[in-house]
Each structure stands twice: as C-alpha cells, then as structure tokens.
C-alpha cells in the first residue's frame, strides 16, 4: 500500500482573522432580506408555539411572512456588520453570534415556506432534536477519536452496527436495555479494530475507516436479507423505548415539550455531551488526551502512554457512537432497515468539523442537520412552491459553504490522522 499516501486530514491554512466570515454573512443576510423580506410573500404565517396537550398553552402568533423576512433580514445585516467590525479589530466572530445568525436565517426561511399556512414550531423543534441525537452521538464518538489523533471515518459503520444490534438483540432478548448495551459494545468492538489497525499496524486511518464501513454494510445487508426479512417478527421487531416526560421541565412553554418529552436515548445524549466537554477541557485526563492528539511526541516525553490513550479514547468513542446507532432504531422507529444509517455517519463527520471538534458546537451543528431533515418532511406537506430537491440539498450546501468559508482555516488536532511510532 506504499502508493497510498493520505495527508493529515485537516491542514491548517492561515492564522490571521480573515474577513471571509463577515463577507459570507453579508451575502446570506442580503439574500434573506431580499428573497424572504422585500420580495417575500405577503400571506400571514401562524406560528404555533404549543401542541394540543401542552400544560401551558401559548396563543398562535399571526404575522405577515414578508414582515418576518424584513425584520430578521435587517437583524442579519446588523450581525454581519458587527462581525466585520470585529474582524477589522482582529477578533473572531464569537460562536454564539454565528448561532443566532443561523437560527434567524432558518426562521426567516420557515416563515417564507409557511406563508399562508401555520408553522408548527414545537413539532419541528421536537423532531429536529430526535433526529439530531444519532448525529450528535456519532459526532461525539468522532470527536473522542480525533481529539487523540485518530481520524474516524468509520462513524457510519458504528452507527449501522449500533442500529442493527440494538434492534436484533432487543428483539431476541425482549429487553431493550440489553439491545442498547449490545449496540454500544458492538460499535466499541468495531472501534477497537480501527484503533488496532491505526495504532498497532499503522495502517492509513482513512482507509481503515472506509473499509470498516464497507464491511459492516456488507454483513448487515446480508443478515438482513437472509434472516431478518424471513422471520422479522422474531428477529427484528423490538419496539421502542417509551416516551418519558421529565416532570416540571416538560411543562416549560415551547422548549419543554420539544426537549423534555423524549426517550431515554435523547436524555443520555443530554448527559453525555456536557460530560464529554467537562472531561475534555476541565480534567487532567482530558488535557492528556488532547496533548496526545496535538503533539504525541511531547506527550510521550512527559510520560503519557500515547498508544494506550489513543486506544481507549477511540474505543469509548465507539461506545458513544453505538448508542447513537441504537437511537436510530429502538430510540426512534423500532425495526432495523437495510442500510439504516444511510450516510448519517458521514454527516456526523461533517458535524465534527463544523463543530470544530468541540462537543457543544458539534451538537449545534447536529441540530442544524436534524432541523433540515424535519424541514424536508414538513416542506413536502405545505408545498411551498420551490422543488423539494433543493430543500433536500440545503444542509449539504450549507456544510460546503461552512467548510470552505468558515471552518476551512480552523485547525484540527495537530496530529490528527498521523500514526505515532515510539522510538
């Protein structure tokens, strides 16, 4: 395999604060202001903040579609201007401002799509969260792996393994919690293969990742066709975890029903994401892990066992990604389907990079993708007058623009993708 040389996955390009972000923001802001505001639709939109059975119900908010576009468009232009001023002063645009920008743009788009219709805000947000959970957990697995310097292209395979084992083991044992455990262990074993090949055999990490994806897809497709479709009732009929509203929190208007009326897989994600952040950035263990990912030689010199650190972080990352896979089946729809993950692992990979290898930002990026999936489903129902194929493409175009414009210069862990040979 001497001919295959893959450079470190994400090379650094420049350090000084570029004005690319404000420029891109400006273009976006003008598009929103023009298309959804000035030349927008005049029909009214009914923002539905609450569902039928919510504890505290808010009245619907009726407003003209183009008014929303104009107000938010002006706000976006203002944010772009602030970002430009910050760039002139040599400061990066803070993350929260970027998030506010993205959220405002999305609401303007929603108001435009829903002109003359009602906009079920709680429904959209709630489903976006459920759909974001597998992506976020997959991305957490990816972050854990890449922070110690192992590129994880195999998230797709880990999600698929988790989804498959959760459904099958959950059905065979009639115990969904055993399915959950099996999903996590299975994906962790897959991670161990990645870790062993990358750390012990020094095989190109991207290639191992791709190979593992192919392998898992082949195996699950075969077992699905040969076994699960023949005897689905006894092998692939797990059901789902019950929906457990959290008392108190679920009564909060708007966000309560969306965030706190969910399944255990979602709540586990709520726990794992901040815990991972805490361990990575606030504990000695996390500092050591990041040191291994940034400068393995230095880490080795001060007595950190590089190979062992990498091995365990990658493996535990597999546990988390496997949980994300379980969220696809027993945390959402129940039964396993052929190629169930369908590329979500690759989206999770994009989420890792969009989120700059940070648990919170990555979760926000995952929510963006979850949001866009709901948007596609919902837009098909309201028939907004633009082809749904374009709505389907939106998250991918946004990711592309973000990778090219916003994060192209953001640095990955310095030793990401590079094997470390002690000696």
């Amino acid at each position, binding site marked *: 395999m001497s001919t295959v040389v893959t450079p470190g996955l994400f090379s650094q*390009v420049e350090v000084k604060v570029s004005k690319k972000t404000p420029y891109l923001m400006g273009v976006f802001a003008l598009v929103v202001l023009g298309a959804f505001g000035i030349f927008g639709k005049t029909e009214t939109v009914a923002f539905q903040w609450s569902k039928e059975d919510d504890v505290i119900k808010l009245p619907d908010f009726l407003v003209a579609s183009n008014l929303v576009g104009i107000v938010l468009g002006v706000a976006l232009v203002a944010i772009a201007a602030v970002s430009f001023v910050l760039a002139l002063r040599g400061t990066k645009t803070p993350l929260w401002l970027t998030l506010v920008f993205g959220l405002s743009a999305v609401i303007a788009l929603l108001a435009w799509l829903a002109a003359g219709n009602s906009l079920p805000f709680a429904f959209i947000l709630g489903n976006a969260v459920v759909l974001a959970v597998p992506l976020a957990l997959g991305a957490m697995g990816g972050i854990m792996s890449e922070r110690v310097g192992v590129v994880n292209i195999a998230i797709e395979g880990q999600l698929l393994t988790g989804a498959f084992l959760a459904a099958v083991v959950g059905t065979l044992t009639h115990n969904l919690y055993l399915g959950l455990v099996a999903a996590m262990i299975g994906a962790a074993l897959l991670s161990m293969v990645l870790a062993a090949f990358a750390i012990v055999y020094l095989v190109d990490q991207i290639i191992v990742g791709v*190979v593992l994806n192919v392998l898992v897809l082949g195996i699950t497709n075969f*077992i699905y066709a*040969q076994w699960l479709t023949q005897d689905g009732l006894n092998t692939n009929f797990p059901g789902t975890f019950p929906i457990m509203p959290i008392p108190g929190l679920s009564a909060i208007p708007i966000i309560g029903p969306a965030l706190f009326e969910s399944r255990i897989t979602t709540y586990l994600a709520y726990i794992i994401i901040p815990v991972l952040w805490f361990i990575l950035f606030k504990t000695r263990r996390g500092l050591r892990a990041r040191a291994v990912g940034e400068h393995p030689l230095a880490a080795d010199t001060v007595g950190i066992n590089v190979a062992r650190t990498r091995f365990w972080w990658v493996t535990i990352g597999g546990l988390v990604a496997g949980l994300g896979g379980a969220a696809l089946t027993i945390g959402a729809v129940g039964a396993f389907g052929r190629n169930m993950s369908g590329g979500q692992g690759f989206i999770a990979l994009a989420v890792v990079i969009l989120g700059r290898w940070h648990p919170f930002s990555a979760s926000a990026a995952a929510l963006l993708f979850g949001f866009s999936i709901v948007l596609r489903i919902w837009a098909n129902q309201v028939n907004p007058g633009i082809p749904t*194929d374009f709505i*389907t*493409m939106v998250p991918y175009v946004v990711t592309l623009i973000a990778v090219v414009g916003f994060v192209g210069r953001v640095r990955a862990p310095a030793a990401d993708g590079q094997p470390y040979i002690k000696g």
Partner: protein
Amino acid sequence: MNNAAETPVVNRGNAVLKEILSGGATRALLSVLLGFVVGAIFMVFSNEAFLTAAQYFTARPTDSLAAAWTAIADGYSALFRGSIYNYAADDIVVAFRPLTETLRFAGPLIASGLGIALAFRVGLFNIGASGQLLFGALWATWISTRVSLPWGVHLIVAALVAILASAAYAAVVGFLKARTGAHEVIVTIMMNYIAAGILTYFFRTPELLREVDGGGTPKSDAPAETAQLPYLLGDQYTLHWGFILAIVGVFAYWWIMERSTMGYRFRMVGHNADAARTAGINVERTFMIAMAVSGAFVGLAAVNQALGARAGMTPDIDGTIGFDAITVALLGSSTAPGVLLAGLLFGAFKAGAPAMQVIGLSPEITGVVQGFIVLFIAAPPLVRAIFRLPPPQKSTVVADWWRSLVTKGGRK
C-alpha cells in the same frame, strides 16, 4: 531502493521466492482467498439445512458437515454459473452470457476505480465518485435525449460532454482544497448529496429531463439510438462498448501515471508534497489537475451508465459504483493492471447475484466477501501473520524485472 547487486548472492532463488511471497500481488491473492473463506463461513451459518443438522451435531456430526459442504458448494457454484460460465445451459450462446455480464458490470467499476486510484497516487482521497458520476450522467442524458445529432457524432459528443462534466465537478473539489484548505473528504461527501439532488430535480421536471409521457416519479427517457453505446457482440449479449472504453481507460491510466510528465508530478506530490514543492512543483495546481483527471476517469463510468442504457434512467443510476470504486482501487493497489483485475472480480460478484438469488442465497453475501477482502488488503501485517509470510524484502530482483517490462528502458 538499493539495487539487486547488494542482496546476498548466496541462495538467490530463496531471496526471489521470499520477495514474491512478501510482495503485494501474493498478498492481494491471499486476501481474496481469505475473503472467500469468510464468505463460506457466513453461507454455512445462514443455511437452514446446516442449522437444523447442527442441533443434533453430537449425535451425527456428518450431517452437519455434509450440509455445510452443500451450502458452500451450492453458493459458489451459483456464483460461478452466474458470472463466468453457465455449464447448465443447453446452448453455447446462453452458456457464455454470464461472462459477458461480468464484463458489462466490470466496465464502470474499472473506469471509476481508475479515477479513485489516480487520486490515491496523488495523496488525495476522492470519495466523490458517485457525485461525479451522477453529474456526468446528467449531461450525457441531456445530450442523448434532448439533442439530435447524426449517428456517430451524437455518441461522441454525449460521451465527451459527460467526461468533461465529471472532470469539472471533480475539479471544483481540487479548487476548493487548493484555495481554502477544505478537506476533499468532506467536500466530496457533500457534493455527492448535492449532485444527487440536482439529478433528481432534472429527472423530475418535465421541462428538463423527465421522460416525455412520465408520471410523478423522477425518470428520464432512454438515450436516442444514435447516442447509445452499440452492443459489442451482437444482440445476443447486452455487453456494450462501455467495456472497451474502460479498457482504453486502463491503458490511458498506465500511460499517464508511468510515462507522462503530468503523471510524474502526480506521483511526486503523492510521495511527498513538501519535497515536491521544494523541487518547484506547484502542489495546489497539481491537486486541481489530479482531481480533474480523476473525475474524467469517473466520467467514463458515467458514459457507461448513461449511454449504455436501453431504457429510461432513474436517479439511482450510479448504483453502488461510487463506493465500490474505492474498494476496487484499494484491492488493485492503485495500479492499472491491479484495478483491471479488481474491477473484473467485483463485476463478477454483481453478475453472479441473480443466480445466487435463485438458489435461495441472498446475493448480499458478495458484499460480505468484498468487505473482508478489502479488510485484509488494508492490513498487510494481518495477512502476513495468518499465512506466516516473510516481511517486506530488501531484494528487488522481481520488482526490477517487472519494471523493465513496463517502463521504458528498464531501471537504470
């Protein structure tokens, strides 16, 4: 690399043998063999006759063994009948049909595999074959269904447009990498989805490419007869000229990589981009050109899919070619003959699927075999450990001899 004279003269035959055993070709062969062995295990453990017999294994183990043997023999003979030679057929024309089917399936795999292999050699990881294929196929379909041109010219124009479109779509990736440092893996994944969206939109919209009396599902017309790739062996076989295009691609790939200045630059950047830059090579431009050429090879596969069709096309015209191409390039270790052989093997897997379905074995088994083959390929030390092969050798007798065959003037 040191020359042959440095190797101990004593026991030269042994050294040559060791070099062959430690070489890539032996490893590839053994990986394929191991892949088939693992596939056989899967066949046995998913076979009902075996599972029934296994329940009384301790009482009569021979039953289990016989059932296992039958499962493997039935499975692989169905694969053979479906992909190489159907010995059960009454008529010689029908008997050879499987072989032509293998070649038909191999065409696009070889072509797109060459594209991925080329990117590998430059140190780029192009997982965008599916997007590049779709984008090329889109414009090939446009020319072949919406433009009328005389016989011959039509086909050539449609093919060239497809190749250029695929190349352009891939060049965007190289451009973005060169200008912004955006990594090609993420960019190509996103561009795959975007191409799929664009193609679906075109196939869905009546003013664009939707078939003339089409319904709601996205589907195009069949290519005009003047733009179809002609059948290669007459109307008895569906094998068309797309396979010949792929073979031409193999020679073109070999020439580009081994003989041309451009290929030399590609390999130099692939071996060590920093050294290449120091030597005065414009690495960024090389990335762009390499992606474009890589996309052009994928474009050959697009021609195959879009102009080899005899009926209307749907947005899944790329099938699994985009990802199979990566495994083909890996198995073929990015060399022209390697990709050719790997493409033929995976083409045979696809051709054998219906015959396996008939005997009640899910054709997805080939996916398992394929997955394990590339797993073994990706980890040379694993295969070496299993077969106790010698580690990589310093002697280069065989390599020199091989190079003298394929390179102008041999090794200096």
